[in-house]
């Protein structure tokens, strides 16, 4: 291994690190299929070991990452389906780096954490989790549109089975709803992918980035892509599948769903919807702004009304991901970096919350807030950890949540939406200010519902005798949660360690897209468009790089 270390540490050092990351879990799943089904311990051990190995293998991404390089690193390109123009293209940049690491970091924790929760069909469970991990990593590193789509759809199946087989009472309804919702989005995206392929001549991300699309084309394609991503995020009003899926999923499913799967939506916006269709993004960004703020406030209010802890956490996800979307549409360095950081934060804190809820559910087999009370005296360690995670979810300073939300809100507040930055655009700028203020109340509401829940569950008198028997956390559970707790503080105290790796890629993204987005509602352009609508076809808006290329030629 040591001999490999130097080569692994350098980007593109001849070793197909990303392919190894994608393939290792799959091979592990294959290996598990050959271990007899009744050897549950072996399955648990092997799957945890494999996902641990994947995490270890993903560390060179961090150590060898060149923070000054805005483009893709560890690039791999191998011909795949030449008849269709699709290649096996992988790469990592500052936008995907941390989400990949989050995936490889969370998966072993989940596998260890679900030892006592999953006791039936353990082999299938472990195989599912490993395939899911492989698909998630693949989605994040694919730089070929077809490959991306392939992994994107591949994520669906294990998740579908995860909820449907190991889920709660109402699991069949939840899992079918989850699948249908996501499939609606992704199949329409497929039409968009094919259209882009026909325009660009290949599925290569760089080729597709270089094509010029008319404003009308951008609108339609953006619609196809954004719907898929918005459902996955989930952006209000496409969120209704999420509470069902979260509530019915086993703990492992909830953690992976909150931790990584939802991020695929926001990641999709950053990687595809924004850079490929900046004009459409500009046109739609006020709408997305409004929807995300509605999501923030609505999610928080509905969470407040929940009786079920897990459902409460699920709705808090709707609220938190509203912040991420807000940061993305604000489209400036601070806000976008905040959004990416917030994706990680949400994965860690909400993941930890689901794990904690799962732990208490295993002991009492209920998730209703009313069935608890006074746990603080009975389970002090559990209470402490729950409090830390709650505070991180609220966004208390020194925890990770604070940094992310602060960056998003300050970035949005300071610079507003690029689209409405031009003066004299009526009431738009005021709307942005209003929306940011409303979003800020979401932070307060977050504190309200989380702390209320915490008070009802942990403080006050013990109202149910069964609660007196509840055991505190055991060693395995502590082992699973300790890394998450450490990360909460580490990100909260040293955010720059994380942000510094994003700078270059985010700056490049903003450089590319912001000027185009900015001029979408430019008065002159609107007038020109009015005239153009009468006489000429659409104005072609060339992405900057294409213009620069043309000049260079």
């Amino acid at each position, binding site marked *: 291994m040591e001999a490999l270390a130097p080569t692994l540490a350098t980007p593109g050092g001849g070793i197909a690190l990303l392919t190894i990351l994608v393939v290792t879990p799959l091979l592990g799943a294959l290996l598990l299929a050959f271990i007899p089904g009744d050897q549950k311990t072996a399955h648990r051990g092997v799957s945890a070991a494999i996902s641990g190995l994947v995490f270890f293998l993903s560390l060179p991404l961090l150590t060898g990452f060149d923070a000054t390089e805005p483009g893709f690193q560890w690039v791999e390109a191998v011909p795949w389906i030449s008849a269709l123009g699709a290649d096996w293209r992988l790469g990592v940049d500052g936008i995907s780096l941390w989400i990949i690491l989050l995936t490889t970091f969370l998966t072993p924790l989940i596998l260890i954490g679900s030892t006592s929760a999953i006791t039936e069909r353990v082999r299938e469970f472990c195989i599912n989790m490993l395939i899911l991990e492989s698909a998630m990593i693949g989605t994040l590193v694919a730089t070929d549109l077809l490959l991306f789509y392939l992994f994107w759809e591949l994520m669906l199946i294990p998740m579908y089975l995860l909820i449907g087989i190991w889920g709660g009472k109402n699991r069949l309804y939840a899992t079918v709803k989850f699948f249908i919702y996501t499939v609606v989005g992704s199949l329409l995206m497929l039409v968009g992918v094919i259209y882009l*392929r*026909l325009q660009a001549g290949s599925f290569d991300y760089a080729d597709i980035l270089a094509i010029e699309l008319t404003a009308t084309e951008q609108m339609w394609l953006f619609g196809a892509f954004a719907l898929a991503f918005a459902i996955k995020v989930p952006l209000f009003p496409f969120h209704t599948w999420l509470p069902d899926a979260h509530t019915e999923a086993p703990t492992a499913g909830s953690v992976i769903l909150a931790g990584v799967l939802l991020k695929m939506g926001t990641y999709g916006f950053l990687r595809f919807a924004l850079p490929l269709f900046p004009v459409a993004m500009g046109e739609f960004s006020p709408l997305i702004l409004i929807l995300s703020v509605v999501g923030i406030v609505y999610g928080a209010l509905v969470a407040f009304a929940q009786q079920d802890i897990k459902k409460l956490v699920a709705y808090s996800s709707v609220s938190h991901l509203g912040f991420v979307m807000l940061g993305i549409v604000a489209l400036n360095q601070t806000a976008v970096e905040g959004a990416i950081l917030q994706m990680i934060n949400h994965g860690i804190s909400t993941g930890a919350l689901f794990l904690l809820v799962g732990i208490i559910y295993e002991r009492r087999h209920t998730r209703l807030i009313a069935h608890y009370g006074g746990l603080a005296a009975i389970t002090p360690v559990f209470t402490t950890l729950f409090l830390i995670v709650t505070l991180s979810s609220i966004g208390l300073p020194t925890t990770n949540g604070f940094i992310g939300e602060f960056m998003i809100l300050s970035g949005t507040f300071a610079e507003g939406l690029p689209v409405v930055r031009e003066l004299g655009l009526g009431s738009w700028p005021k709307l942005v200010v209003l929306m940011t203020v409303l979003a800020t109340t979401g932070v307060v509401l977050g504190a309200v519902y989380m702390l209320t829940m915490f008070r009802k569950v942990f403080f006050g008198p013990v109202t149910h005798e069964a609660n007196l028997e509840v055991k505190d956390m055991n060693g395995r559970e502590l082992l699973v949660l300790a890394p998450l707790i450490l990360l909460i503080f580490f990100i909260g105290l040293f955010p720059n360690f994380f942000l510094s790796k994003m700078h270059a890629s985010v700056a490049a993204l903003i450089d590319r897209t912001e000027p185009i987005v900015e001029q979408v509602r430019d008065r002159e352009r609107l007038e020109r468009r009015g005239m153009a609508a009468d006489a000429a076809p659409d104005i072609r808006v060339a992405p900057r790089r294409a213009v620069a290329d043309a000049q260079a030629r």
Partner: protein
Amino acid sequence: MLLELLQISPLLIVTFVGLLTMLVGAFAPAGSFKGWLGYLTGFGFLAALVAIWWLWDRTPVAFESPWLSNALRFDAFGLALMAVIAVGGLLTTLTAIHYLPAQRSDHAEYYSLVSFSVLGMMCLVTANDLLTLFIALEVMSIAVYILAGFKRQSPYAIEAAMKYFILGSFASALLLLGIAFVWGVTGAITLPDIARVFAFGNVEEGLGLEGVAHLGMVLILGAFAFKIAAAPFHMWTPDVYEGAPASVSGLMAVAVKTAAFGALARVLLTCFGDDQFREGAASWETLVAILAVVSMFGGNLMALAQKNLKRVLAYSAIAHTGYILIALLAAPAVADGTLTLNALGAGLVFYLLAYTLANAAAFGVAAAIGANDNEDASDPSYSGLAYRHPALAVVLTISVLSLLGIPVTAGFIGKLTIFSEVLQSPTGDYLWLVILAVINSIISAYYYLRIIVVAFMKPEVQPVETVTSRPLGWSLGLAAALTVILGLIPSSTLEVAHEAGRSLVHSTTPGLIGAAPVDKAALPSSAAAPRPVEAETALKDAAQEVARP
């Protein structure tokens, strides 16, 4: 002579196997295990596959005798579909070996009938004139009519066979009438000649002959719509698929459909490739688009309500007919000013292969749960399949996902290819059709997922007992593995499919298309065919005959 025998060896092998099994079966003691004839038949299909592979580099095969070159056209398209049919036949035959005894219908005739129907299918996709086409269709159909009622003690099977036979005969009659009309107008019977007459023969106006030719085209299309189970000609499908033994339903779903689609594509794209049939109100493009939309919506919406695995698969087969019909509308090939011919891309051939694999596996699972004379494939009969038979459940899942078109399965690549081919058309005429197809895929997700739900997530209603059979396992394993492999590395298969699709144009009308290379091998056949002038005189004769009161 010997060379020609070698050239048609795939057909001869299948015929020989069919005759052999019939002969041996007649002397085999009643009540003994006949499965070994199934191995023999399977081996015959493998041998046919080898022969097809040998012929592939020699396409288009040049027959010396005009009677053979006029009747059969062994081009890449025909050979590729022959291979798909042989694969479908092989997979379903392996399924039947232990399934039939479990259904108390283990008779030797089964295997010879399968061989003869496959012979008919192989001739159908390579038919070069309308008479061969008709005879091939009948050879195929009659064998399948009998197969549908093969479990003769079962009233469902009898009903299925009767229904299929009556409606199928009706379709055959339509086809014959259509052929008669086309022959009457053009005076030509081979497909290239008919195309040539339509392009250059100046079918005289004012005599209503154009209308007659058009009517012939519509009748032929209608007849094939029966065979491919396109809505609204689909009424027989669910009952027949449900009533027939699962291995036969599998054969019908995969091989019969492949053959009928091959013949339909060949007739429409070459014989009726001329603009007069492709444009206007009642053009076949419009009709095919309508059939596609009705089939997709009809099949998918009706499948939503089904609780029986075989019936769901039947309705899904109707929906898939819709998707495959879209492939016929792919962008037209560039031609000189006179004749525009549609060229298929890879879509049709690849999709049929993907569909064959997925459906062979799905019907294979339907056969596997048919132990102890169980004919029922409704939910309780396979509920909780994954508990006792995880491998069967996984195969079922893979095939269902492939039918749904989820990535890493062949079905996804098939859909992708068809959609991109149709979108590639410079005019973008059929974008709406692609979007409707995508909407339909979404609808279909619901009932395909239900199958996975029943197999994986519902508890067992009764202990699921399955046919224990090694050949069935091979068949399922092969189909599932190929489905995944073709989903992951489809490149070379796509290229083969592409060559197959393009070969239609090149081989049927040699020298007519400016851009296409002149096909030397086909020249003797065109030399033997009537010149346009001759065709014209023939036409006038025909016209006078029609005009005569």
